[in-house]
């Protein structure tokens, strides 16, 4: 049981990207069809399983794929590679982050309207942690800066993509 050239190309892309890759991007880079890509990923995972590889491709139902280390190795490597441990998120920070995650792109003023407090220093901290980034400027008077989440945010929260955030409606009913 060996990988085909298609499989090799797909696995290479996942290896090189170092983040979850959507099906469209895989199509674009590889030139393969969606069905071929899905088939390749099944094949890659079957072979990775077979040889006991520490790597595996995880996927969500939106067809985003991520080549990553299996969870059973977490215990052996977490001291070195769970860099999230260095980050301390205050209640303020996590609430602000939640608002940005769900409402991005969003301005500081808009966040403050929801939270009811100033969030300048929290935004600065989140920017420093690399969890949010400036995504542009709103085309309105004063051209306020727009914020959005980063790939690092997804990585740190174990999300393949923003589509994997729990639907906000779920919280509405509570």
């Amino acid at each position: 049981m060996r990988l085909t050239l298609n499989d090799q190309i797909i696995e290479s892309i996942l290896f090189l990207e170092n983040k979850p890759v959507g099906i469209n991007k895989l199509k674009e880079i590889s030139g393969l069809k969606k069905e071929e890509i899905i088939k390749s990923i099944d094949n890659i995972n079957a072979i990775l399983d077979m040889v006991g590889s520490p790597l595996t491709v995880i996927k969500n139902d939106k067809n985003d794929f991520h080549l990553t280390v299996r969870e059973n190795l977490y215990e052996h490597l977490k001291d070195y590679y769970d860099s999230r441990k260095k980050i301390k998120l205050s209640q303020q920070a996590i609430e602000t982050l939640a608002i940005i995650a769900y409402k991005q792109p969003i301005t500081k003023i808009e966040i403050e309207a929801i939270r009811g407090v100033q969030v300048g220093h929290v935004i600065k901290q989140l920017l420093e942690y690399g969890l949010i980034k400036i995504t542009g400027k709103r085309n309105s008077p004063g051209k306020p800066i727009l914020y959005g989440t980063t790939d690092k945010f997804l990585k740190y929260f174990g999300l393949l993509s923003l589509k994997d955030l729990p639907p906000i409606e779920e919280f509405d009913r509570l």
Partner: protein
Amino acid sequence: MEKVEADSTKLVKIENFEGPFDLLLFLVKNSKINIEDIVISDITSQFLSKLKYENPLDIELYSNFVLTISMLLYIKSRSLLPIDIHLDEEIDERTRIAEGLIEYRVYKKAAEVLKNQFENEKVLIRKDIQLRLDFKDDENWEEMSIVELIMAFSKIAKEVDTSIFKVLEIEKISIDDKIDEITDYLLKNESIMFSSLFTDNITKYELIITFLAILELVKMEKIIILQHRLFGDIKIIRRRN
């Protein structure tokens, strides 16, 4: 931060509802308590008595409180005004605050879920890539003109000049010998570095012979001189045809 949360939920106790934002939200959303039934001074005095024992002063808690109180006051003051003088934008303002609070409640819940995820997810962070592919260096070499070659040579010649006294022996090597030597080397090897042709103890005579040999080989179309685009290093390869 956990501490602040716990404190602020105990901040105000009226009916069955705790916490300034939650209380306010409840009022606005469900209208179960009439704003007129709330004695704001009760809340403030509760808070102020609490503050006395609070050391050092928790600014975050304090500012949240002030904000809440001012909102309550705002809503209360609006409610005291005769309805028919309400302007549209004032209603909008009131609705806006109310909506903000409802929204806040939702995101506070979302934040809890995210926090859980952050704390419990087993994520090993792979470092960002330094190199995507090991590019073949071939593309970094470009052909060099004779003028550039002479300039490179003159730099070497200047250096050798200063050490010329070291070597006094008579040279017997000819240009043809040197041509053969280089050609022979390039038949066995892919390339030769220009700098390696001019070793530290080279004599001025051999230096000139070597250089003339290279020029001759270029003229004979036997070799190609390439220079590294970035580092300026020069190498000689055999012309294949």
